C-alpha cells in the first residue's frame, strides 16, 4: 500500500468528513501562531527596531561624549581645537509636546553654522541654501518634518518644559534624514535657551578618520577629555536602551507563548480523539499491509498540514492583531523606558519563517504522542465488530511519580540565578510546573471525581451520576481537557495574582512615597527617559506663598550607568523628611538613612538599580558629572516601583554642587497646618500664570500612577484573554467529539426512555464538571506559578520586590467567567446530542 493511499484513507477522508474537528485544529494553530506573531511584530515595531529618535540628524560619527546632567559646553571648544582632523558635533537633545496634537516629539538643537561645513550632513532646505543663517539668532525659528506644519512661515506651538511658545517654521527637514517620526530642529543657541540647559550640551558626537584605528583614537581622546565625561562608541545610548527593551520584549514574548501552549494541548486532544475515532481505518490499512511507520507518518503529516494551513491563516491575523498591539506596547515603552515612536508593522521574511516553524513545530510535536499510539493499533482492530469506546488505560501511578519529579525540578529551577539578566530558569520552572500538573491531573481526577459525583448526584440527579462516570471512565480524555483548561486558568490566575500583587504594592508604595498635599510638574509630558523642568523662579515664588509650609524640589536626569539607562535624581531632604515613608531593604528607619544622605557625597539607590548593578550599601558609585567624576557612598537601598531602570538619589544640595542647574522636574508642596487646599491651589495657579504646568492633588497623582500601571498591563490582560478563548474553544470542540463518539450511548439512552432534555443536561453537567476540575487544578497551579512570577521572574528581570496579595474580586470574577464560558461551550454539542435520532443511531449498531 502506498503512503499516499494510506494518507488518503486515514487522513484526508476523515478530515473532510469531520469538518468541525478540522476547523478546531486549524483555529488552534492559527490563533496560537497569530498571537506569537502579533507580539513579535508589535514588539519589533514598538521596541525591537528601536533607534533612539534623539539620534535624528546624527551622522556617521564614531564616538559620543556624554556626562550625567550634560557635557559642559567648554568641552566642545576644547575638542574643536584639538590638533586632529576630527568633526565635533554638539547637540541639545530634548523633547517638546506639540500643543495642537499632544504628541511628544524629539527636539534637537544643532550648530547650524558648523553644520554647514560638512557636505555629508543632512541639509535643511535646498543644497547650498544658506537662508538657514538668516534666522541664526532668532529664538523662535524651527525646522520640522512636513507632517508637523504645512508651509514655511506658519507657526507651531510647542510645550517645552513649563513653557508654551509659538515657533515659526523656517523650513522642512528632508525625509531622507535618519529618524523615525516627527522631529523639530532648532539652532543650538535657541534650543539651549528653550530647554534651559545653559552651559551644557547633551551630547557631543565625534567623527575621526579611519586611521589609526578606533582603539587608538579612543586612547587619544580619553587622554585629553576630563574625567567627568564618558567617551562611548556612537549609538551607545541606543544600544543601552535596546538592551533594556530586549528584556522587556523577552518577557512579553514568553507571555505570548502561553496561547501557543494552550493551543498545543488542544491539538494534542483533537488528534487523540481522531486517532480513537479512526481505529477501524487504522486497523484496516494495517491489515492491508501498511507498516507502523507509515501510520505514524500519516498522522504526523496531517499535523504538519494543519500546521501549514493554520500558519497561513495566522499570518494575516497576526499582522492585524499586531496593529492593535503596537499602540498599547508603544505607550508602555514610552511611559516606562524610552521616548520612541513606533515603527511600522511589517511582515519580514524572518517573521514569516518563524511563524511557520512555530506553527508546524507545535502541531507536529503535539500530535507526536497520539500518532505513536495510532501506530500501535493492531490490524485485528479492523476485524472487531462495532465501534470501540474511547477508553485507554492511563498509568496513574507512573504519571503521579513523574509529576512529583517534575515539581521537584521546578522548585530547584526556581532557585537558580538569572542568565544574562533574563529569568530563564524562572520560566523553565513555570514550564516544569505546568508539565507536572498535566501529569498529576489523572490522579487528581480519579480522586476528585467520586467526591464530585457523590455531591452532584445528590444535587442534580441521575444525569450528574452518568456524567461523572463517563468522565471518570475516559480518564485520559478528561485529563487532557482538564489539563488544557486548567493550564489556561492557571496562567490567568498566576498573572492575575502577580499583577494584582504588583498593583497593591504600588498603591501602598505611592501612599508612602507621596506624602505632600500638592504636586506640580511641567505640562511637557514626562516619560521613561525625559524629565521636563520647572523654572527655578516659579518654585521659589511658590515657596513664599501664604499657606505653604514647604516645598521639595525633585530633579531627575537620564543617565547611562554601566551600559544601561538609569536615572540620577535629587530631592530636597528638609521638608519631606518628617513625612517621608521611604522604606529601605535594610529595614532601617528612613529618618536615619536620609540624615546620612544629607551628609557629604552620599547616595541612596533604588532596589532595581541595586539588583541590576549589584550594588550594596556601603559601596562607592562613581558617576561622570561633567568636568570631574564624583564618587558617592551608597547609604541605603530603597524600595521603588516607579522606574525599572533604577534610580540613584542624591540630596539636592549634593547634586547642586556638581550640576548647578536649579530647575526642578517636579515640586512636592506641603501645606501649612490648617491651610485650605483649594485656596492654596488657587494661589499657586496665580503664581504659575504664564507657565504651562500641571498642579495635581495627592489623590489625583496616585490615580494617574495607577492608570499608567493598568495601561502597562493591558497587553498582558489581552494575552490572557486569548489563552482563555483558545481553551474554551478546545472544550467546545472536545465536547463535540465526545457527542459524536458517544452517539451510540446517547441513542441507547434515548431508546431506553431518556428525554432529549436529559441528554442536554448530561452534556452540560459534563462541561460543568470539567470546568470545576479545571478551576480547582488551575487555581492551585496558578497560585504556584504566581509565586514564580513574583519572586523569581519579576525579581530577576525587573529587580523589584512585589508583596504577595490575593486579588480576590478579580480572581472570583475571572474564574466564574471562565466557568460560565465552559458551561456555555457545552451548549452547542448538547444541541447536537439532542437532535440525534435514537432509531437511526440504534440502527447503525
Amino acid at each position, binding site marked *: 500500500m502506498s503512503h499516499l493511499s494510506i494518507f488518503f484513507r486515514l487522513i484526508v477522508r476523515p478530515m473532510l468528513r469531520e469538518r468541525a474537528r478540522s476547523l478546531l485544529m486549524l483555529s488552534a494553530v492559527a490563533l496560537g501562531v497569530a498571537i506569537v506573531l502579533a507580539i513579535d511584530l508589535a514588539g519589533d515595531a514598538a521596541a525591537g527596531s528601536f533607534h533612539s529618535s534623539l539620534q535624528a540628524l546624527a551622522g556617521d560619527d564614531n564616538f559620543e561624549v556624554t556626562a550625567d546632567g550634560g557635557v559642559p559646553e567648554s568641552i566642545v571648544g*576644547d575638542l*574643536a*581645537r584639538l590638533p586632529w*582632523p576630527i568633526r565635533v558635533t554638539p547637540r541639545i537633545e530634548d523633547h517638546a509636546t506639540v500643543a495642537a496634537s499632544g504628541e511628544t516629539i524629539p527636539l534637537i538643537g544643532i550648530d547650524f553654522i*558648523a553644520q*554647514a561645513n560638512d557636505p555629508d550632513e543632512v541639509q535643511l532646505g535646498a543644497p547650498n541654501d544658506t537662508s538657514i543663517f538668516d534666522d541664526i*539668532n532668532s529664538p523662535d525659528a524651527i525646522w520640522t518634518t512636513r507632517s508637523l506644519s504645512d508651509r514655511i512661515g506658519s507657526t507651531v506651538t510647542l510645550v517645552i518644559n513649563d513653557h508654551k511658545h509659538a515657533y515659526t517654521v523656517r523650513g522642512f527637514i528632508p525625509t531622507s534624514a535618519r529618524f523615525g517620526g516627527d522631529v523639530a530642529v532648532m539652532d*543650538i*543657541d535657541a534650543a539651549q535657551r528653550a530647554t534651559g540647559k545653559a552651559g551644557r550640551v547633551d551630547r557631543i558626537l565625534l567623527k575621526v578618520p579611519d586611521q589609526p584605528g578606533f582603539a587608538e583614537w579612543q586612547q587619544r581622546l580619553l587622554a585629553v577629555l576630563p574625567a567627568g565625561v564618558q567617551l562611548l562608541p556612537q549609538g551607545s545610548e541606543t544600544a543601552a536602551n535596546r538592551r533594556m527593551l530586549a528584556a522587556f520584549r523577552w518577557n512579553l514574548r514568553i507571555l505570548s507563548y502561553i496561547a501557543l501552549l494552550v493551543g498545543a494541548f488542544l491539538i494534542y486532544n483533537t488528534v487523540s480523539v481522531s486517532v480513537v475515532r479512526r481505529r477501524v481505518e487504522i486497523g484496516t490499512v494495517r491489515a492491508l499491509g501498511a507498516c507502523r511507520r507509515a501510520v505514524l507518518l500519516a498522522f504526523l503529516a496531517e499535523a504538519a498540514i494543519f500546521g501549514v494551513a493554520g500558519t497561513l491563516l495566522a499570518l494575516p491575523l497576526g499582522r492585524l492583531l499586531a496593529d492593535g498591539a503596537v499602540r498599547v506596547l508603544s505607550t508602555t515603552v514610552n511611559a516606562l523606558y524610552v521616548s520612541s515612536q513606533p515603527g511600522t508593522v511589517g511582515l519580514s521574511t524572518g517573521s514569516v519563517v518563524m511563524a511557520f516553524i512555530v506553527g508546524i513545530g507545535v502541531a507536529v510535536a503535539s500530535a507526536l504522542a497520539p500518532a505513536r499510539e495510532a501506530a500501535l493499533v493492531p490490524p485485528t482492530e479492523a476485524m472487531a465488530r462495532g465501534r470501540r469506546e474511547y477508553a485507554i488505560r492511563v498509568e496513574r501511578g507512573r504519571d503521579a511519580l513523574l509529576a512529583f519529579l517534575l515539581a521537584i525540578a521546578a522548585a530547584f529551577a526556581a532557585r537558580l540565578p538569572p542568565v544574562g539578566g533574563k529569568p530563564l530558569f524562572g520560566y523553565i520552572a513555570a514550564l516544569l510546573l505546568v508539565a507536572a500538573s498535566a501529569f498529576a491531573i489523572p490522579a487528581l481526577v480519579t480522586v476528585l471525581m467520586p467526591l464530585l459525583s457523590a455531591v452532584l448526584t445528590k444535587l442534580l440527579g441521575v444525569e450528574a451520576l452518568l456524567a461523572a462516570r463517563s468522565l471518570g471512565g475516559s480518564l485520559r480524555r478528561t485529563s487532557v481537557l482538564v489539563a488544557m483548561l486548567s493550564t489556561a486558568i492557571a496562567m490567568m490566575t498566576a498573572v492575575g495574582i502577580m499583577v494584582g500583587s504588583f498593583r497593591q504594592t504600588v498603591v501602598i508604595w505611592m501612599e508612602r512615597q507621596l506624602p505632600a498635599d500638592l504636586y506640580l510638574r511641567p505640562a511637557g509630558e514626562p516619560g521613561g527617559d525625559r524629565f521636563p523642568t520647572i523654572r527655578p523662579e516659579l518654585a521659589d515664588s511658590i515657596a513664599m506663598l501664604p499657606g505653604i509650609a514647604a516645598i521639595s524640589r525633585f530633579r531627575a536626569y537620564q543617565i547611562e550607568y554601566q551600559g544601561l539607562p538609569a536615572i540620577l535624581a535629587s530631592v530636597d531632604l528638609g521638608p519631606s523628611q518628617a513625612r517621608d515613608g521611604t522604606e529601605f531593604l535594610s529595614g532601617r528607619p528612613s529618618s536615619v538613612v536620609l540624615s546620612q544622605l544629607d551628609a557629604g557625597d552620599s547616595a541612596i539607590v533604588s532596589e532595581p538599580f541595586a539588583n541590576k548593578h549589584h550594588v550594596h550599601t556601603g559601596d562607592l558609585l562613581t558617576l561622570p558629572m561633567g568636568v570631574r567624576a564624583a564618587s558617592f557612598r551608597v547609604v541605603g537601598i530603597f524600595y521603588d516601583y516607579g522606574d525599572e531602570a533604577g534610580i540613584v538619589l542624591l540630596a539636592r544640595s549634593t547634586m547642586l554642587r556638581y550640576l548647578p542647574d536649579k530647575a526642578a522636574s517636579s515640586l512636592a508642596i506641603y501645606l501649612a497646618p490648617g491651610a485650605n487646599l483649594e485656596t492654596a491651589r488657587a494661589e499657586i495657579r496665580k503664581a504659575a500664570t504664564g507657565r504651562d504646568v500641571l498642579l495635581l492633588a495627592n489623590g489625583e497623582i496616585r490615580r494617574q500612577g495607577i492608570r499608567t500601571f493598568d495601561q502597562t498591563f493591558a497587553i498582558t490582560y489581552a494575552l490572557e484573554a486569548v489563552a482563555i478563548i483558545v481553551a474554551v474553544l478546545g472544550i467546545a470542540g472536545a465536547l463535540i467529539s465526545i457527542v459524536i463518539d458517544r452517539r451510540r450511548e446517547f441513542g441507547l439512552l434515548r431508546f431506553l426512555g431518556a428525554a432529549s432534555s436529559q441528554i442536554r443536561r448530561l452534556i452540560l453537567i459534563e462541561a460543568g464538571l470539567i470546568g470545576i476540575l479545571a478551576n480547582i487544578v488551575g487555581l492551585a497551579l496558578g497560585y504556584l506559578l504566581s509565586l514564580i512570577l513574583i519572586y523569581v521572574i519579576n525579581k530577576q528581570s525587573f529587580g523589584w520586590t512585589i508583596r504577595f496579595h490575593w486579588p480576590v474580586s478579580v480572581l472570583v470574577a475571572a474564574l466564574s467567567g471562565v466557568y460560565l464560558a465552559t458551561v456555555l461551550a457545552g451548549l452547542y454539542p448538547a444541541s447536537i446530542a439532542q437532535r440525534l435520532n435514537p432509531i437511526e443511531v440504534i440502527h447503525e449498531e
Partner: protein
Amino acid sequence: MKSSPARLERRCALLLLVFLSIAGKAADYQLALPGYHYQFPRDNFNHSAYRTEWWYYTGNVTSSSGHRFGFELTFFRQGISLEANRSPWYVHDLYMAHFALSDLSGHRYEHAERINRAGPGIAGIDAARQVIWNGNWRAHIGERSQQLQAITDAFGIDLSLASAKPLIVQGRGGISRKAAGIGHASHYVSLTRLLTSGSVRLNGADYRVTGTSWMDHEFFTGSMSSDESGWDWISLQFDNNTELMLYRMRHKDGTIDPFSSGSYVDASGRTTFLSASDFSMQPEDDLWMSPKTKGRYPLRWQISVPRFGLEGTVTTALRNQELTSKFGPSYWEGATVAAANQSGVSLHGVGYLEMTGYAAGAANTKFP
C-alpha cells in the same frame, strides 16, 4: 547694480553669500576713517566695532630637498550682531577661514574652508592669549614671532614666522582707500617679510621647510564701491630685501579705480606709499579658465614702479590655484614668482597674486 556701497567690500569675493545677506547693519558699525591711532599689540587683534576683519597669511616655502610649496591661511570675522547677549552660542560674529596648500613642485593645489560661530571656544580672537583661531586652525601672534598651525585630513602646516621688518600701515592717514567717498576704505597693516620655518604635511608626508611669508590684517565696515567688480592684488618679496604690494580695483566697465594703490618697502624697512599714478600692473594675454567656476584669470602680469626704477613680470608655477568656496564666491589666490629689473640690476622675487570677481556667480555679480 542696486546694492548700497556699504554692502560690498574690498575683497568681497572672499565674503560668503551668507555674510551679504545677514551681515549686521552697517550703520551699527564704525567706518574706517582717517586719523586712526594704531596701537600694538592691541591692534593685532579684534576690532569688533568694525563689521569685517581678516588676518591673511600667504607664503612661499621650500623643503630641504628642494620641494616648493605655497600656502594661504586666512581668518575672517564678519559682524552679525552687536546685541548684548551673554550666551556663548549667540552669534555676534561669523568666523570663517580659508586654508590652501600649493604643491608647486608636485603641481597640486589643495584647499579647505570652514565657518563657525565663536561658541564656547570653537573660534575667535583672544588678545590675552594672543591667538586667532577657527577650530584647530590657529595663528599665535607673539611680540617677536608668530605661529601658524592648521590641519585637514589631507594636508597641514605648522610654521614659525619671525618678522624681519617692522609692521607697516598701508595707505595714507591710517586708511587704505578703495574708492572715492567716505568709508570706502580699510584700516590695513602688513608684515611684509616673515622669515618662515617649520613643517608642511601633505598626504601623509612631512616636509621640513623654510621660506618667506606675508601677513595682511584689515578691518573695516564696507569699503568697496558699488561700481567696482573686483580687484587684483600682488605682493612680492625680492631677493634684495625689498618688498612691493600693489592692488587695482576694477570697475564693471573695465576701467580701473583711481584709488588703486600700493606700497614699497626698502631694505631698511622704510615704506613709500604708491598712488595709482606711481605704478602700473597690466595683465597679459595668458588666461587660465577655471573648469569649476568658468572664471578666466590672467596668470601673467607686467608691473612697473618708475619711481623706483622697478619693472618685471609676475608668473606662476601652478595654474590652478583657485579657491572655490562652498558658501560664497571663489577667487584665485596663488604663489607667484617675479623676474624683475631694478635700475639695471636683475631681481628675483616670490609672492602671492590674488584675483577676485572673475568667477561666475561671484557675490558681487549675483547678489545686488
